[in-house]
């Protein structure tokens, strides 16, 4: 099975960021036990990425693999919807 590769863009260590991280980690640990990577990028520390990656708002989650690349915005509290949208075959 193709490993799940995720990148989460946040803006600082705010309550919004912490909620998103917590929800995603729970989803991954529960549903992708075969392996996943979740990279967390803070655009406050790396503001250049806002332009290069075209980030409009945070928290933005990008599913890098398996393709195609998909973007999501929100708090990721609806685990079922996330899993359906990510859809690993």
């Amino acid at each position, binding site marked *: 099975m193709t490993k799940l590769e995720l990148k989460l863009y946040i803006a600082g260590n705010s309550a919004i960021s912490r909620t998103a991280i917590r929800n995603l980690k729970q989803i991954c640990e529960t549903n992708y036990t075969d392996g996943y990577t979740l990279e967390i990028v803070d655009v406050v520390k790396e503001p250049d990425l806002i332009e290069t990656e075209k980030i409009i708002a945070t928290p933005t989650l990008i599913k890098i693999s398996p393709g195609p690349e998909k*973007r999501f915005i929100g708090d990721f509290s609806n685990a079922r919807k996330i899993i359906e949208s990510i859809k690993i075959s």
Partner: protein
Amino acid sequence: MSKNAHANRQECHHSSTQESRIFQLLPQFKDILLLIDSNGIIRYVNPDVRRLFGLQPEKLIGSNFGIPMTGDGNALIDILRQNSNMPFLGDMHVNEVRVDDDIWYLLTIENISEQRRFEDFIVREKHRLAAILQDFGDGLIIIDNNGQVELMNSMAEALTGYSLPDAQGKHVETILQIEAGQPFGTFNKFLNHLFRSEKSVDLGAEAIMNSASGETIEVQVVGSGLTDPGQQRNGASLIIRNVSTRRKLEAIMLREDKLQSIGLLASGLAHDMNNLLMGILGNLSLTQICVGDNEEALATLERAEKAVERAKQISHKLLTFSKGGAPVKETKSIVESIRESSGFALSGSASVCQFNFPHNLSLVDFDETQINQVFQNLVTNADQAMPEGGLIEVSAENVLLQTGEVPTLLPGKYVVVAVSDQGVGIPKEKLSRIFDPYFTTKDSGSGLGLAVCYSILRKHGGFLKVESQENVGTTFLCYFPASASQPKKSTSKRKPVKYGGGKILIVDDEYMVAETTRILLEKIGYNCCDVGGSQEAVEVFNEAIQIGEPFDLVILDLTLPGDIGGEEILGLLRQIDPKVKAIVSSGYSHKEVLANYEQYGFNAIAAKPYDLADISHIVYDLIRKSRSNAHSQKRFAMKVAN
């Protein structure tokens, strides 16, 4: 620009005309309005975002915003502004819209940055207020309009024994068990008045509260009504202050004030008494010398002398009790004095003393006579509390006191001596008066004993406390500052009368004292002259020098009413003859000069009434020393001349 982005932009432009017509029909939003397709691409954004948020709509359209992923259609997100480090906080609401067979998303994003800043401010202020309340030294309780507890600080939790979570929602009368005095009579009446009053309301004096520790404490309670921004009544605040400690200190100060006033009277009485006793004792001593071996006469005189001794003790008691009464201290272990005085107090009694002293008990600076008096009194009281006899436990230990641990005592090292009995105890209502002069719980007794003990301890820089329970027993606790000094060598025992020779000038305004002293000293071999004041003293002293028969020694009364004192007279005499030796004598024992006589130029002290044997040795030693010095100087002068 990537291929996908370019394609997206073209598609968006094609449908933008149709869409813009739709959005023209929509009311003007003060928020961001986004239309997102099923792939997360922005299809439409309201043009006002430029003006409202500094965002560029043309750059947003065709960008990949992302597919909204929320739990209930709402989420907080940070909108990142280009060319700015400050994102603004958006409250995003998502509505799914069916477009053909696809699900698109209509998003409204409200800028709540200001609101969040305000909320953060409120949270910070709440934290600050909470910190201030916790540090507040008194108990603070906030109640609502129904008297139910909303908030209280840690001091209030400690006083009531309720934690805030347990107290919240309960009526304040449940957690505050207060018996009110005047003017309200009950706490409930006070609360009713508080809710009707526009001003602060004081519960009044003598409010008693059962604290969490089970102790009954005296409290001051002040209530104030609270209002909301609309000036509507919004509950009340109660400040509860434990005033028990303050009251105890006030009581101690009042007691000390009383003691001082009575002390002034006692001081004068004792002084006059000492002078009279001087006359009696002096003449008894003289008579003893005159009667020779007549046993019957000697026995009679001895009985008379004992009676005078007894009177001397009472006078001493009064002096100790009076203003000043500076103890003449020595540095040594207090253990022997306690054992001796306790043993003396229990002679002939059915009670026994059990002592418990550690080996490393600190030394104490104390006046042995006074401390003996303290422990005699305390042990006697303990014995009297157990009419059938019993065990009196006397123990001591070194303690390190913290600030406020014992009233009036500074933090530091102390020796505390406890005298405990298992007797009848002292009724609670009498405990606070036990050290008052002339207060007694016994049928007989002067009521001065404990007042004297208290006074002695205070003058030693210590304190006397009592703990008692009826039918269980009583413990007196005596606190002494631990000494920093080294002990002096032991004093000599009582000596016989020493006869000698020399010339002595006696200066005392009391004729009886002056004459008696002169006769006594002449009896034991001295050549004496007595005068009543400073002028006469200087004249006589000068005349003696002129005729080549100077005085070897002067005995000066410390206080001559209407005249200069002994210290000043000595100054004048030493101007005439710097070598003259001087003894200071007084019926007052509290004067600073007596406690530190050497610093004032005197060579010895003699407290009235004198003991003939003691004063004979003092006089003999001083004159011998003086003559020996004079002789050495003469031999030296002769040697130099030769």
